[in-house]
């Protein structure tokens, strides 16, 4: 619906602009801070414009091990990337197969299986963190990529979303494929996967960001700097004891940490919106 009232248009755009500004301001402040030298930052109030130490700050973080962390930021980003990709891809693969089984196959206790998966929605990582830690420690997976990824890899949300999508697929399509000689794997690969492309893209975006932003779990199981993730490192940079907090490093690392999720969203936003809004049939 569109109203022909220029006043209303103007007011709503103004409101929108103010809103955007409010959200953008902290990001901008972090960015400007990351381009000043430490002495600059401590001598003046928070700078509103970029300084001249930007390039050297970022280059230092990327090349040299950061004091207090024992590794460079590139390594942190790589760790985060492995974890986030592992979680996103793993979650999608597992939920895809789980939903496929629940919707298209008849087996005993099918309904029970679905509800068991569903109720795990109510148990976030934090609730089961102690037993999970115990299991991971017993499996000698502390300080390893599998340890970072595996406990977070099952997803009731994704299973549920894919199930809802699969339920909208007309049964005749399944039957036509059966008559065309497509077995279960071929049906999954040739029919179901292409049809759920947009849903998978949307889930990937959500799950990637979920994985990237993990804090508590990586904090708990990584003691070795080689497996430290960038989100956890931010907190560690702030705990300097008696020394001054290196704000230019903290903000620069934060800016770098924001990069990949933003990139994923920008690249996939077309599918992302499509996957959440429409079902292509």
């Amino acid at each position: 619906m569109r109203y022909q009232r220029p006043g209303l248009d103007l007011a709503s755009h103004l409101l929108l602009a103010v809103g955007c500004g409010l959200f953008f301001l902290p990001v901008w402040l972090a960015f400007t801070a990351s381009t000043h030298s430490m002495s600059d930052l401590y001598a003046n109030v928070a700078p509103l414009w970029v300084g001249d130490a930007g390039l050297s700050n970022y280059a230092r973080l990327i090349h040299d091990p950061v004091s207090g962390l024992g590794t460079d930021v590139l390594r942190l980003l790589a760790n985060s990337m492995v974890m986030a990709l592992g979680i996103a891809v793993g979650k999608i693969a597992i939920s895809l197969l789980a939903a496929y089984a629940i919707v298209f196959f008849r087996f005993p206790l099918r309904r029970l299986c679905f509800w068991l998966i569903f109720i795990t929605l109510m148990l976030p990582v934090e609730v089961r963190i102690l037993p999970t830690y115990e299991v991971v420690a017993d499996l000698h997976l502390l300080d390893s990529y599998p340890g970072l990824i595996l406990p977070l890899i099952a997803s009731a949300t994704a299973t549920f979303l894919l199930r809802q999508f699969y339920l909208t697929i007309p049964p005749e399509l399944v039957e036509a494929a059966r008559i065309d000689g497509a077995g279960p794997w071929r049906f999954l690969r040739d029919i179901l996967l292409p049809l759920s492309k947009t849903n998978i893209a949307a889930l990937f975006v959500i799950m990637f960001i979920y994985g990237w932003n993990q804090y508590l779990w990586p904090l708990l199981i990584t003691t070795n700097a080689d497996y430290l993730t960038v989100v956890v490192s931010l907190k560690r940079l702030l705990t300097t004891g008696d020394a001054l907090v290196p704000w230019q490093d903290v903000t620069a690392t934060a800016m770098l940490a924001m990069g990949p999720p933003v990139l994923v969203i920008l690249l996939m936003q077309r599918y992302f919106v499509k996957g959440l809004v429409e079902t292509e049939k």
Partner: protein
Amino acid sequence: MATLQLSALQKRYANGFVALHGVDLAVEDGELIVIVGPSGCGKSTLLRTLAGLESITSGELTINGRRVNELEPAERDIAMVFQNYALYPHMSVFDNMAYGLKNRGVPKDDIRRRVNATAELLDLGALLDRRPRQLSGGQRQRVAMGRAIVREPQVFLFDEPLSNLDAKLRVQMRLEIRRLQKRLKVTSVYVTHDQTEAMTLADRLVVMNAGRVEQCGTPMALYERPATRFVAGFIGSPAMNFLPVTVHGERLRLPDGGELTLAAGLEAGSALTLGVRPEHLVALDEGDATPEGGAVIQATVEMIEPLGADTLAYARMEGLDELLVVRLHGEHAAGEGSVLRLWLSPERSHLFGDDDRRIEAHRATPVTGSRG
């Protein structure tokens, strides 16, 4: 090219519901069999058991003499056209038609040749790169047909393939299906609830009711000599009129007191049903002499439906609860409220016993006692 044999085919669902009570049917090579019946009569279930999409509880199904009860749909060498077409939405028309061949490991060149030939046959050549959603209903229907034809199967199965089309397109596609089936000579089973479609397409017609075959025969045989009251009421549009009659000696007494003689050793006093089609009730004009044989009944017209070529009159007959439907010729000027004199011909009447089965009794002898 194949024959299809169903012997005592039974389907019982897990919840105990019996959808098919032992169906026997032999389909000959190249024949087009139409299965027709009201919704819930088991006609779709029957088709799905033929396809292998539903398991068979008992009985035997053979294609070309080979038992196929336990075979997967893909192994039965059949092709099915679905009501909603069930085209793969993400594939082009070409890929839709090629998919079944690809899964069977047919070489790429062969696939291309066969799909192109089929597309030619169905006038789909220009649409091969389109997606199903870019096609009209009729085009989708043709792609669905193409997907079945390209496989060169032993048997075609059609599950109400025309019911999603508008009336004009339906007639056109009906002719096209008939033409293709005659040309390709593939044994076909066609399910529909539309009796016009059934009459016009079928080599032989199977009327089903409540999981049983009521009658099987050519469309005209079913029209002229329906074996049960159900078939009589189902085949023909508008449906046959049914009059309750009682046997008095040699005669049948009509609801309005008129009498009709049918020569048969009928048990006196028994209550039977007389059926007569709307097109077989002859309206007599003022001066017309009463024809020989049969009975003349009077009925008051309550409603008129002009169809152009002819007119349907719904008329009230004394002693009958339902309205009598009469098909009048187009120019017949029967106004609402007018009284029709209708001649009931014994040759064109059908008699059904209290078990709803046909009684062969229409060898007529001359009339007596009509009140016309």
